[in-house]
């Protein structure tokens, strides 16, 4: 009854990665499970995690967000710039950075839902606009994060960094939203089949806009976190990380359908964890960074190929496929088909498939 869902597969792959990591890291004489290493891996999940949470929503509603790297950079600059090394400025600076990010998301959502521009193009354009603004306004790093703010990026509870805890808290909130609110249900519905959603009385624009706003806000949070780690804001920090494509890859690796309508946030977190572990293992093994990309690429493509195979729907067979014919028994008359009326036709593709003859 409980068939293997893509989320199961993701965590199975994560488990395999852990085992592989234990063995491979062990060969270098180090311990994969040391507090330091676990902390490294979890730190690696936090930034990508924020982006991937938002990206999951955006992909679920059938859109994409390619503007996240620039929102990250902008948020880090706005945050660090306003903080200007004053602990008292932390709260207003953070709020303003998030507000700016949310507004970018609102613009993305409005263009996608209102003007019917596909998310790929809408957010590519938005990314270019923000990128141009960053390039013309900032020559390099700017602003200064006060010590109290930098501590967020540096401290942890045991081996778990605070940044990861914040990311997980956000994930929990979004998970509740997605699974137990009308908004969440509407996101699945709009991404799955917008006409069906509309015919069921769902307002089809709201979920798209909400997904974009949340996604951008998450990117803003990631930007603030990077500012806390670096101590400054940077106009290139987002694009250096390649977070746009990497987050899409994590979402898809997590089993979410790129076309929308199907997927899970829990799967995405699994995808993020796999990427973080792969990164960690390859760093410990001092793998050439280009080879790292090769490995990532293989993992993504193989994962999606596996999902695609499982999704191939087959039309129910009327006769056996085998080379032998099922006897020469007379065909059973179609039940309910007797005395049928009108011209032998019906309008759609679903047909009366009657029983398979014995």
């Amino acid at each position: 009854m409980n068939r293997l869902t893509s989320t199961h597969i993701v965590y199975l792959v994560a488990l395999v990665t852990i085992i592989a990591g234990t063995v491979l890291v062990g060969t270098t004489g180090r311990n994969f499970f040391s507090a330091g290493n676990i902390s490294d891996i979890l730190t690696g999940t936090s930034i990508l995690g924020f982006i991937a949470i938002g990206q999951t929503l955006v992909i679920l509603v059938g859109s994409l967000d390619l503007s996240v790297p620039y929102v990250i950079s902008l948020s880090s600059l706005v945050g660090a710039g306003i903080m200007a090394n004053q602990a008292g400025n932390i709260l207003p600076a953070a709020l303003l950075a998030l507000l700016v990010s949310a507004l970018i998301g609102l613009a993305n959502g409005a263009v996608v839902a209102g003007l019917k521009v596909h998310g790929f193009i809408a957010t590519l354009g938005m990314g270019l606009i923000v990128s141009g603004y960053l390039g013309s306004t900032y020559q390099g790093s700017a602003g200064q994060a006060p010590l109290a703010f930098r501590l967020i990026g540096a401290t942890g509870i045991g081996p778990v960094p605070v940044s990861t805890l914040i990311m997980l808290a956000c994930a929990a909130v979004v998970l509740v939203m997605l699974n137990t609110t009308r908004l969440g249900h509407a996101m699945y519905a709009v991404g799955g089949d917008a006409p069906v959603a509309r015919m069921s009385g769902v307002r089809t624009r709201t979920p798209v806009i909400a997904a974009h706003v949340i996604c951008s806000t998450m990117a803003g949070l990631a930007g603030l976190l990077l500012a806390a780690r670096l101590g400054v804001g940077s106009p290139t920090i987002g694009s250096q990380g390649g977070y746009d494509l990497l987050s899409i890859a994590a979402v898809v690796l997590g089993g979410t359908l790129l076309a929308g309508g199907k997927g899970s946030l829990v799967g995405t977190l699994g995808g993020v964890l796999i990427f973080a572990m792969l990164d960690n293992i390859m760093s410990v093994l001092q793998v050439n960074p280009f080879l790292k990309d090769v490995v990532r690429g293989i993992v993504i493509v193989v994962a999606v190929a596996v999902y695609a195979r499982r999704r191939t729907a087959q039309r129910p067979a009327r006769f056996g496929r085998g080379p032998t014919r099922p006897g020469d028994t007379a065909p059973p008359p179609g039940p309910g088909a007797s005395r049928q009326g009108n011209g032998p036709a019906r309008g759609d593709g679903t047909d009366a498939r009657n029983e398979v003859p014995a």
Partner: protein
Amino acid sequence: MDDDVSTPGAPTPILRVTGLSKSFFGVPVLQDASLELFPGEVHGLVGENGAGKSTLMKLLAGVYVRDAGRVELDGEPVEFTHPVQAHQAGLSTVFQEFNLLPERTVAQNIYLGREPRKGLLVDRRAMNQATADLLEELGITSIRPTASVSSLSVAQQQIVEIAKAVSYDARIISMDEPTAALAGPEVDLLYGIIDRLRTRGTAILYVSHRLKEIFDLCDTITVLKDGRIVTSSPASGLDDASLVRAMVGRPISAFFPGALPGTTVGDPLLQISGGGNDQLDDVDLVLRAGEIVGVAGLQGSGRTELVEAVFGAAGFTRGTMTLGNASYRPRSPRDAIRHRIALITEDRKAQGLSLNQSILDNALGVVRSVYPRRTAAARREAPGVFSSLEVVARDLDQEVQFLSGGNQQKVVLAKWLAIDPQVVLLDEPTRGIDVGAKVAVYSLMRRLAQEGKAILMVSSELPEVLGMSDRVIVMRDGRIAGEMPPTASEEQVLQLATGARGVSP
């Protein structure tokens, strides 16, 4: 308001439709339709393809907006412009196409957009419970509210659709061919649901092609033909034969060109013996040069599967085929095309054309990819082919999406003529095209026959099959049920296609 029309004491209709009309692009599809629906009544709506049944339902459901006429619900005039308004007023429609999200659960689908809530959160337990209650009320125990719709059978999905319609507290439910996808026991299940709805006082408008169901279920039967209501009377006063006659009784016009002089039926060109795959079984068929063979049968009887098997799209896994004198076993459409076999597909827009490319690019599509060396010649011949087919277009660079259906179909034909096919398979070649284009398609078929090509034409239009074919093969449930001469009557073909007894002209 208009109650003075009904006799005092007689039950008042829950729905009254008067003078409903609708045209598309100036073509009237429904004219002056009037009917009444009473609580607890099952009202059958029958008619041929294009008779206007679906249009009538969609007008009632608010999918289309009427051009003229009046719809009253409980005596109040209503005008729906969106299906949701109709739902809220108590008029639900179960359309032929499923309106379900396959990746979501049964309960999530039924309560989509109006999920019961506790505070801000969706009350999943209440939603599942309400769904379970609803299904139980309809006598369904086999569907779990938490099951994902994609895991359900087509029949179960159909039941979920009906449950969704009922969940709006519908007082009127219209169903467009609800049994189309159902087999025997599942049809019984639907009968049970309809009985329960009837006892609750729900009025049901029931569209079906299956006369047995119409007579089993309906209290009143309305027959539509060519957009007009021809009769509307209690079911008890009608029988199969009178109903069939009311539906198809139309003169076969002198619409179909006869065979061209010099056309001779020659040697067998394509022979299938014992052909079968997972959709077809035991297919024996001979196509001769210069011959037009029609394929009749109900939708889903295996007609399209037959031409797809010959075309190598979903080939036979059993049996043998010979083409000319050689064994023929196509592995792919490309392989079939190399054997100079053409398939004009049923779905012109999805499978026949690349809509945003030009007429010329579409016409050269097959030649370019399969016979690249013939491309230049085909390009030179293209203007002549198009003028002989009387394609109406600005020029050959026009994108095909801007052409009418008939002209689009001619582009498809031109594409296949370019490979000089020896066997031409046509699947619903005149669907959705105007009369002039239809005649052009028929004339082309005659010309191809004269040139000694073998032609196999699948069609749902019985007059067309009978009017154009030298022989008609009738399919049923994936097998060839029999063969008929073109002199057979529509009723006889129907009888064979449905396995019916007792329908006599």
